[in-house]
């Protein structure tokens, strides 16, 4: 899906390829950010509208990885959506329960960890989603967030600590 490697691809072909390749990754990231399936789907749609509109900018961006570029759009879209204070009241446990049936076996610890990630404050959740979940490099994560690497490192460290606190503190799933 490297557009530079296939210069003859039209904008439509590029977008279509991106949609096929990255829609699920974007939808899941948006869902984890927004904790609402409907809004995550809307954010995914909005991401593609913006990507289409600004596709020509991508080549001039400092960001090298198209996935990172798209995730930056997605995360910024999510930030816009959840700007209102009412968003704090979403019941994330309920949000997980309302997901479509899983295709894989899910253990209690998976649910706990997912919920813990969803409950992280935004700036920590972003680094966990990009760096750990989506597998971006440290530099790509920094580019995506418009931050320097040291900031990302600091946030990661803090995010890990928060996750550990959340997961091991309750000890609800351990016997």
């Amino acid at each position, binding site marked *: 899906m490297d557009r530079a490697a296939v210069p003859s691809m039209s904008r439509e072909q590029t977008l279509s390829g991106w949609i096929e390749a990255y829609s699920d990754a974007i939808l899941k990231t948006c869902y984890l950010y927004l904790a609402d399936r409907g809004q995550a789907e809307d954010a995914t749609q909005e991401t*593609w509208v913006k990507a289409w509109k600004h596709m020509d900018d991508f080549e001039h961006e400092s960001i090298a990885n198209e996935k990172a570029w798209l995730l930056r759009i997605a995360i910024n879209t999510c930030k816009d959506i959840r700007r209102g204070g009412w968003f704090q*009241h979403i019941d994330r446990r309920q949000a997980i329960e309302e997901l479509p049936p899983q295709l894989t076996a899910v253990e209690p610890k*998976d649910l706990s960890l997912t919920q813990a990630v969803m409950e992280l404050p935004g700036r920590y959740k972003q680094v966990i989603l990009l760096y750990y979940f989506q597998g971006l490099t440290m530099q790509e994560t920094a580019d995506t967030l418009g931050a320097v690497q040291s900031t990302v490192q600091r946030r990661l460290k803090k995010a890990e600590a928060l996750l550990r606190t959340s997961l091991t503190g309750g000890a609800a799933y351990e016997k």
Partner: protein
Amino acid sequence: MKNEVMARQVRQSLNATLSGLSTTPWQRDRFYLNATGGYKVKKRIPLGLILVIALLLTCATALAAALLGPREVVEQMAVPMAQSSKQENYTHEELEQLITTLNENGITLDEGSRIMQAFRAGHGYWEQDTIREICFAAFGRDERAWSIDQQHWYAEMMVEIGAWGRNIYLLPEGEDMTVPQARARAAEALRQAYGVELPAESNDQWQIWESYILGWTPDANASREDRARWGFTYINRRTGNDDYSVSFDVRGGQIDLWRAQYLERIDTRSIDAVLDDLERREGVLTQWRVETWAEFGGLIQNLPASTRSAWLYQHAGYRLPPEGALSPEQALAAARREMGFADFGGWIEENAICCTDGDRPIYKVAQRVFYDAADVERRAVYDVFWVLELDCATGEVLQKRQYSYLPEGDVYDPDRDIMMSYVPFSLLERAPQYENRQSALSLEQSALFRYEQEPGAIEKYGEVMYFWPQEVLDEVYGGVYAHPTQAEYDRAMEIATSALYEKYGADALTRLGDWQVGLLHRRIDDTRENNRVQLDWDFMFTTDPDYLSDGYRVQIIQMVYADGHEEIVELTVEHANMGNG
């Protein structure tokens, strides 16, 4: 370098939890068309009608004067507003007009609902959810308890605004049974099967959920008559654990009959089984009341303790507080006072357990600051918790210990002792040593989860991982999915097909035609705690391995014990394309 253990754990858990969340080809098509300006899914209405609506909106008082019911407000205002907009959400102004009209007609939306919170915060809200909220106000918050007519009408409105593609909620017509006839048929079927007398309508004892829908059939071109399904579920409000369900086709032919009696008894074969069942009934043990702990203590008294934690539970002497003792609430308050949290404004997670230290009844109180109201940005790291022991009778604090949450190295540390919260401190030192058996397939032993390889596998083998070769699953997921033995597989297939035939008929697979079977299999070694292995089987029988548009999914959770006997803990059979409607 990445903390690979953390990265793997995050990916694995998030992917497992979100595995059902994916885009459909139809959605991706829509993403593309919407992005490029191809089309908008929402229904359009003629310009003339938009003008009429605009006129109506500017004359909201005219609507108010007519004393509209919720249906009229939705039909005459909410739906046309939605149809006239390219967006899928009402603006704040539109929402204000709607809410004003509703209020003027005596309809009040729940102030705690998301829509009202959004409105009060100056936002708009999604059209679909707004109409749903109006219906909640009108018909009740439990959609399952809506009448056949209400369900049909609501679905019709969803179709009108373009949120749903079609209305599968039917109304009886022509030769169909009427609703009263169908209710009588349902009650009779359950009376014959279970000898239970059920009412025609919901009452103090029975809550009835009824539905009349276009069901799924393998034949996409099946007629309405072939697809129409009545469904009735009766929930026993008094016992809360005795439900009946029946479904039948338009001719009254029975399709499914079901009875659920939840946890009639606790499985007392092992301490862990008791713990599992009580957690299923009461929630996680950190939330148990002292009564549940006392019941737990009684049930496990004479069971073999094969692990250290089991031994500790067994010897903790869980009991009810003796007469004249502090209540659990008073014990928690005493602990808060001791820790300086008496006037704490944040959220403290805490629980109190009554147990016995020697001959002395004590409260174990575990406290953790979950959230400090003053710490709005959550800058603090709440990495400690406290466990106190109090005399049951006097509330005197006998011991107070502080613990750290953060084991070095990993998020999960199976050997970390968490029993200090649940048993007397004195017992911890006395507990015998148990052999620390290594898990046969621990995550530590499995290869690292190489998520970045997944796109390549999808490209090569398709999105439906049920049909990926095992070695590809291994490569991509690093051992998360296990290799069953031939004997294990044969046995699981036998269970799966039997269940499938039982639910959908002996010709269920024959009817499918040229079907294939895909499998995701996990093996969870539980020998250490329970001397058993948990085998999870997720079979997919379908003729369409690309999109799973037909067929059946069978999920089995099977426990296999060291002595060879097996136990089927869960067995679900469903249509494969549930997610696609």
